[in-house]
């Protein structure tokens, strides 16, 4: 898999969709590529969040620890961006992510991510836009729930 393919993947992620290709190339080039075996953990709930992951190939389960053991709450497939909340805020991982197949991911370290944001306000704007969108979606959902 070459850099150009990784740039394509990044482009499919809403947060990076409007960022110019040379910046995405920089992001791709400076990130690492890691492979995980089936059943291997990308990270566990409570860990310190040090990087975000983009699934290039394979699938993963998102699980939350409950009193009755782990509960699978979501399932991620190709092109999903995982763990970005933990690198934007300083909270520990809020969930565990485990590869359910052989999984290939781009790993963007927290340091790298922040450097990019500092260097290119454009990325920061895109992230704000994305977060605002999510907030709006959450508000809509709360309104729906309270209306119901």
């Amino acid at each position, binding site marked *: *898999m*070459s*850099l*150009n393919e*990784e740039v394509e993947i990044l482009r499919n992620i809403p947060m990076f969709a409007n960022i110019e290709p*040379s*910046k995405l*190339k*920089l992001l*791709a*080039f*400076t990130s*690492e*590529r*890691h*492979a*995980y*075996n089936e059943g*291997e953990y*990308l990270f566990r709930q409570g860990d310190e969040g040090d990087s975000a992951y983009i699934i290039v190939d394979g699938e993963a389960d998102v699980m939350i620890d409950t009193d009755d053991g782990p509960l699978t709450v979501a399932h991620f497939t190709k092109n999903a961006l995982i763990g970005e909340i933990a690198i934007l805020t300083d909270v520990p991982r809020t969930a565990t992510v485990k590869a359910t197949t052989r999984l*290939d*991911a781009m*790993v963007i370290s927290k340091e790298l991510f922040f*450097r990019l944001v500092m*260097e290119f306000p454009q990325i920061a704007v895109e992230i704000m836009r994305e977060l605002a969108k999510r907030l709006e979606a959450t508000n809509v959902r709360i309104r729906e729930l309270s209306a119901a």
Partner: protein
Amino acid sequence: MAASATEGGGPGRLPGHETPGYRPNVPLERSIFRFIMKYSKRQQLVVLALTVISWPIIYLTLELPKTIIDQAIGARGGWARDVLGAEMEQITFLMALSFGFLFFVILSGGVKYVLNVYAGRLGEQMLRRLRYMLYSRILRFPLPHFKKVSQGEIIPMITAEVEPVGGYVGTATSTPLYFGGLLLVYLGFIFAQDVFLGLAATALYPLQIYIVPKLQKRVIALGKARVREVRGLADNIGESISGIAEIRANDASVYERAGIARRLDRIYTIRYEIFRRKFAIKFLNSFMAQLTPFFFYAIGGYLVIAGDMTIGALTAVLAAYKDLSSPWKELLNYYQLQADIKVKYESVVEQFDPPGLFDETLQLTDDAGPESTGPKLDVAGLAYSEDGQNRTVDGVTFSVDLDKHTAIVGSGSSGRDELALVLARLATGTGGRVDLAGRRLDDLPEPFTGRKMSYAGPVPYLFSTDLRENLDYGLRHRPLRPAAEAGDARRNRYIRDARAAANIDADPTADWVDYDAAGVPDRDALDRKCVDMLRLVDLGDDLYRFGLHGTIDPADQPDLAEAMLAARAALRARLDETQQSALVEPFDRARYNTNATLAENLLFGTPAGAAFDIDRLAEHPFVRQTIHEAGLAETLLEVGRQLAETMVEIFADLPPGHAFFDQFSFFGSEEMPEYQHLLARTSGQSTGEMREDDRLRLRSLPFKLIPARHRLGLLTEDIQARVLKARDIFAGTLPDGLRGEVEFFDPERYNRAATLQDNILFGKVSYGEANAAGKLSTMIGEVLDSLSLREAVMVAGLAHSVGVGGARLSAAQRQKVNMARGLIKRPDLFIVNEGIGNLDGAAQRRVLDAVLGEMKGRGVIWSLHRPGFARNFDHVIVLKNGRVAEQGSFAELDREGSALRELLETE
């Protein structure tokens, strides 16, 4: 070989009272002349004899040419002459005289050669003696003296300052004698011609002899001042090096520069003054030398014109005077040199005579003293004062059992530091006494105190060698087993020359390590003991890491190399078993390693010398040739161009100096404009049209490409296949001269240039596998444990170089090594002065407990920086203002209002 002390008298014997010409505690001669006479009287007589022998020979070389001209050539008509009863024709006579002349010229040269060599050797021998004496004295300086003199001052004294002394000593008698003699010979020659001429030629000598020393006096004083200033300069530089962090952190570099400039100015001024005076003397000398001919010309010329003197006689006088001037000048030079050396010598030796010099017999004796320290250490009325006034230890009296552990606690100024130093005999008490093994501590020989006792201070020094030699430093007292070549001619010469200069003749390359003292039979067992002790002081994990990241020479350690190959196989098997083989991409001659750089793929080995620096591989002529042969030259150039374009595209927007350049780019930000320019300039050009320096530049870039890491897709399968071909060409055509420069990867062989860890891995850690390095590190540990090799790796770690003064270790690591060093010699009494203050809190407690456990049943006296630790000791002595405030068990002292409680509360 059995551990046995070398018999006295053989090579390696200590120069004590037995070594000819060496007596301990010899005072330093305060004057250079007495030094020369005391240690080289006989040799100076030889020089004198050789000089005297040369005179008649020189006279003959002067006399013969005259005879040849006057009698052999000058005589007219056929004649025969009676020489030693044989009749000689004129030609035969001429030949005889000519060959005679040749013979004496050679003889004179030969005598001069012998004299020069002998005098040169004598000078060097005396210099060696002097330097050794000075160095020996440093080893006997009372420790507090080192607070007053700096390294920067002492080192140049022994190295540079005494250097000219050697040259002088060799010629001290020969130069004045030789040139004085020469002068006399010439004078004799002249006086033999004409007494009046002789008197005229030497008329001004008395004046010169009177004036020159007067002028010289001031120069000598200046010389002394200059020596002092240069020493000060060395001291300033030394301080700047030691205090570099403070200088930089306080923006004091300008201040320091100003200080140095002032020092340099003083040296400059003194030197300038010396030059002015020295050359004034020279001027005066040569003026007076020319004054005599002036009289000859003026008065002699007048006499010739007046007809009272023949022109021939005047010419003869002038010629004779010319001959005289050269030895006379040499004599005057000698006088100046002599005055200079006298200053240098005196200003050095006066620095090496501090009061309280340690008794040398106690250091050099072969008497090891009592069998053990005995059951008790008694201190009675002990006082200590550094300056003779303020007593930091005063009237201290106590007695401790040496099968128990004693803590000394007190504030930093309580005198516990000084007390520990006095008990370790590193400082001498100024009053009272310390008794050990039934004797006064002061009278015990160093072979006793240094073997039966250990001392660990707060700021340990590690020698600039490896861990192993630092650990067994406490076992190297005397040469025990001669080196292999002992007893041969080289060794005998060494001994002879060493003794001639009163140096020690012990062989430093012999095996000095006293295994008995450590309670082990041999080196291997001692290594294991070193590992145990380092584990004990909490340095085991570090040691294991040093081992894994160190290299070994399989020729020296074939077993370990073999074991590492077994570990290599075991790791591979384990990776396969657990289906994790993707963590490492193994080296395979037939395959391109995508986790390695192109350079590594091409070399397919580890550089073993300087020739194939992996970062500059593309520049090596043989590599360039290989690339050509493999048809890769243009391809790599094209790849380099694409790589440069990509880098420019990705990184061009980043500000210069951005951290990403260092971390990710193939070139630094400062090179960015050059590459942008290069690409613009060559755009549209074919690779063949480019300039040679552009080609080299672009071609070097892809050598750092790692496909699995950079994921640029530039190294296609076709290119990889051609690199494999180049790899074969490289190995196949490598010239013999470069064969030692690379260790090729070979699955069956140990790679001496690679670390133990790389030998076990035999491949590159995969960039693509999550947490590969961590997983592999765990797995290597498991493999080594399963093969019982962890200890062997730790033993290999003992070869870890500690750097200058131990600088490659942290302060805490140095303290740990120092504690282990103290334990290895199994002392009867271990005196610790703080010792572990740089360790973190938990580690301090662990190491303290471990050391006390190891010393169970033997004596420990520990001056504690944290009074709380006293809980672990049998007996506690509380010091306050240099006096014993209270003593007893911790439980007894730990009560309301006690001095110990007070200390515990402030902790």
